C-alpha cells in the first residue's frame, strides 16, 4: 500500500500531466491520405478543367464541350444507356430478389451467394466471355453494337442490383403484406401500396450502384461494341491517351457534378431512413 501511494505521489508530481496518446490521433495518417490522394486530385481536376495547355485560367474546355456536338452527344448517349441498363437490371433483379427473399420460394442461402459470385471472377474476363458468347450467337459489335453493349452492361451490373434489393426484401414486413391481402387487396394493389414503398431504400441504392458506373464504364462498351459506341468513360480515356488533359478534366468534372447531385439525393434518403428507423 505504501509503495503504491508513493508511486502515485511521483506521477502526480509530474505536473502538468501530458496525455501523449489519444485514440483520435489514429485518424491522422488516414486523413492525410484522404487529403493527398482524394481531395487534392479532385481539386486538380477542377484546376485543369478551367485552364489551358499553358496552365492559364481559361474556359476553353467548357466552351469546347458545349460547342462540340459529338461531346454533348456522348453525354446524352451515356445517360441514355445508363438509364436503360439501370431499368433493365431493376426489372430483372427486383422480382428475383423478391423470390430469393421469400421463404416460401427459396430456403437456400447459398443460392443468393451464387448470384453474387460472378463478382469474384475477373471483370475483364467476364466481359470477354460475354462478348465471345454473343459473337457465337451472331450478336457482335459489327452487327448490333448497341444491343451488345446493353447486354454486356446488364450482365455486369445485375449482381450489384440484386444484392441491395435482396437485403431490403429480407426486411420486408411480410405480415403487413398478408394483412393487406387479407383485407381484400388484390396482388397488384398489395404490390403498389405495400411492397414497393417498403423496398424504396433498396431500389435507391441499386440505382446508385448501377447508374454512375454504367455511364463511366470503359471496358464493357469498348469490348462489346468493338469501339463503335463511345461513352463518357471512353471519351475521358481517349482524352487522357491523347494528353488532352483539360478536355478530359472538364468531362470528369461533369461526372463529378452528377455524382455530387446523386450523393445529395441518396444522403437525404438515408437520413430519412435512419429517422424512420429511430421511431421503430
Amino acid at each position, binding site marked *: *500500500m505504501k*509503495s*503504491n*501511494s508513493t508511486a*502515485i*505521489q511521483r*506521477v*502526480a508530481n509530474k*505536473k*502538468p*500531466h501530458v*496525455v501523449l496518446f489519444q485514440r483520435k490521433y489514429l485518424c491522422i495518417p488516414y486523413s492525410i491520405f484522404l487529403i493527398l490522394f482524394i481531395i487534392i486530385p479532385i481539386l486538380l481536376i477542377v484546376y485543369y478543367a478551367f485552364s489551358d495547355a499553358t496552365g492559364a485560367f481559361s474556359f476553353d474546355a467548357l466552351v469546347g464541350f458545349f460547342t462540340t456536338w459529338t461531346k454533348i452527344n456522348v453525354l446524352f448517349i451515356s445517360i441514355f444507356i445508363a438509364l436503360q441498363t439501370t431499368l433493365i437490371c431493376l426489372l430483372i433483379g427486383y422480382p428475383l430478389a423478391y423470390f430469393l427473399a421469400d421463404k416460401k420460394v427459396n430456403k437456400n442461402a447459398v443460392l443468393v451467394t451464387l448470384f453474387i459470385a460472378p463478382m469474384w471472377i475477373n471483370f475483364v474476363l467476364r466481359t470477354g466471355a460475354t462478348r465471345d458468347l454473343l459473337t457465337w450467337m451472331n450478336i457482335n459489335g459489327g452487327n448490333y453494337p448497341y444491343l451488345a453493349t446493353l447486354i454486356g452492361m446488364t450482365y455486369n451490373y445485375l449482381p450489384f442490383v440484386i444484392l441491395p434489393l435482396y437485403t431490403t426484401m429480407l426486411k420486408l414486413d411480410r405480415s403487413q403484406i398478408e394483412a393487406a391481402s387479407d383485407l381484400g387487396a388484390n396482388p397488384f394493389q398489395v404490390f403498389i401500396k405495400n411492397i414497393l414503398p417498403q423496398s424504396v431504400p433498396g431500389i435507391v441504392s441499386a440505382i446508385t450502384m448501377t447508374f454512375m458506373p454504367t455511364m463511366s464504364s470503359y471496358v464493357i462498351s469498348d469490348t462489346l461494341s468493338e469501339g463503335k459506341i463511345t461513352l463518357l468513360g471512353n471519351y475521358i480515356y481517349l482524352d487522357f491517351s491523347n494528353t488532352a488533359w483539360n478536355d478530359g478534366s472538364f468531362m470528369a468534372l461533369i461526372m463529378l457534378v452528377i455524382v455530387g447531385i446523386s450523393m445529395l439525393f441518396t444522403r437525404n434518403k438515408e437520413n430519412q431512413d435512419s429517422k424512420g428507423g429511430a*421511431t421503430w
Partner: protein
Amino acid sequence: MEENNKIISLSHVSKVYDGVTVVDDFNLDITKGEFVTFLGPSGCGKTTTLRMIAGFETPSEGSILLNGNDITKLPPYKRPVNTVFQRYALFPHLDVYDNVAFGLKLKKVPVTYTTKKGITKTKLKHLSSKVIDEKVARALKIVDLEELEDRDISTLSGGQQQRVAIARAIVNEPEILLLDEPLGALDLKMRKEMQLELKAMHDKLGITFIYVTHDQEEALTMSDTIVVMKAGQIQQVGTPKDIYNEPNNAYVANFIGESNIYNATMMKKKVVRFLGANFNCVDDFPVNEKVDVVIRPEDVELKRIGKDGNITAEIKEKYKEKLIGIVDSKVFKGIHFEYIVLKGKNEIVVQDTKEFNVGDVVLINIGPNEIHIMKKELTTNVFTDAYIDKNNKLIISDCTFDCELTQLLSDSHLDENGYLIGPDNKKYDLKDADVFVEIGLSDIEILDHNPNEDENIGEIISIVYKGDHYQYLIRTKEEEDFVCDSDYAFNENDIVSINVLPKNIKLTLKGSITKYEVE
C-alpha cells in the same frame, strides 16, 4: 489521525459538459473501508462523479485526493481503483480466466535481485503465471465461480457475468472498488441475493466500496453511508438510518422509501398543523414557520370509527380537531396491508397489519415521534399532490392554474383535442395525471381580490420583511399554503388573488408518461 482514515476526498468538484453543469461543487470525504452509496435518479450526476473518481472524466473544477495525493488528472490506468461496470463490460473475445487475469497480466511489480557483481538492483517485472493462476483462482473463489475458468463469456448467465466482472475488479486488489449500478441488469431475485453477497464481500475484503444506484432499497440494505444527490448536488450524507428517519428535505424523504409528505405550518411551540388537524411533535420550529412533514406509511395508526364512507355528524362532533379519513383502497402485500386513506383530496398511504375495509371511516393517529419535520427550502413552492384536470389545467387543492403540459415531454406539442403529442407521434391523455409542482417564490403574483372575478384566492397569514421585499405566506380555504415574494405591501388577513404565469409553473410527472398513452 483523522487524516489517515480518509482514503479519498473530493473538494469543490464540478463537471460541466457543453455548458451544462452535471456535478456542482461536490464535497465529500470517504473513510477507508467504508461502503458508500451515491443515490439519486438518472441524470443526477452520480455516475459522472464515479467516473471522475475512476479517471474516465476530468473534473472541470476542484480536486480529488487519494490518500492525500492529488489524482485529479491521473489517467485511469495509474489509479489503484477498479470499476465494476453497469453492463459488466466483459471482454467477449476472452474466456473467464483471461478476463479476470487481464489486469494481472499487465501489472509490473518491483523485483529486487543481486547481480553477479553483488550489486542489488530493482527491476519491474511481470507477475509469473503461477502467481496469476493463484490470484485468479482466489478471486473466482470469492465470487463462487471456481469451475467456470475456461468458459466463454457468451455462455454465462447474467448473474455469472456479474460475478466475473466483480472478480476481474477485485483480483487487482484495488484500494477502492467502484460499482456503477452493477445489479441493474439482473432480475429481482438475483438482485436481492447479490446485494447480500456484495455486502459480505465488502466485509471480507475490507476495502472501500463506492456504489452508484438509483434504487433506494438497495442503498439502504448495503451501505454504511448514503449520499443522496439531485441535479449534481448533494442533498444529504448520512447513515441509512439517519437518511430514512431524519431526511433533510422533502426531496430526500420522497426518494428514500415510500412516504407521506405534506405542507405544514407550526402553530404553537411543538405543535404542527397539516391535513386540517393539529399534531404534537418533538421538533421545535418557530411559530408560523412553513415546514414539510414526512410520515412513513408504517408509522400511521388507524382506528375504525365508522363505515360505508359515512362521516356522521356524531363522529364529527366526537372527533373534532382530530384527523378522520375514509379508506379508499386496500392492497395485501404479504406481511401487511397497504391502504390509501383519503382526507378530503389528500391521500395518506398507510401500512398496517390490521385489516380494514374500503369505505371504513378511520381515525388517523400519528405519534409525535413519527412526525419528521423539515425546514422548507424557501426557494420554491413545492406541491406534491397536484394533478391535471380534463381541461389540461393544473389543480392544486382548491386552486386552478393554466400550465404548459409540453414541458412533461421534450419535443411534444398539444393537438386541437388537448392530447399531448410526443416526438414519435404517440398520443397521451394527461387527464388526472398526478404531478409534482414547483413554483418560484417570485413567480407568484398577488393582487387585491376582485370579488366579481373567479380567482384563486387566499388569506395572508404572515408577512416577513426581507430587507428589500416582503415574503408572504398565503393560505387558501383548503389550507394550501403559497409563499410569495413581492415588492408590494399587503396586510395580514387580506384576501388576495394568486396568479402564476403558465411558463413559471414547473411540472414533473409522477411515474412514467407511458401509462397515459392512448391508442
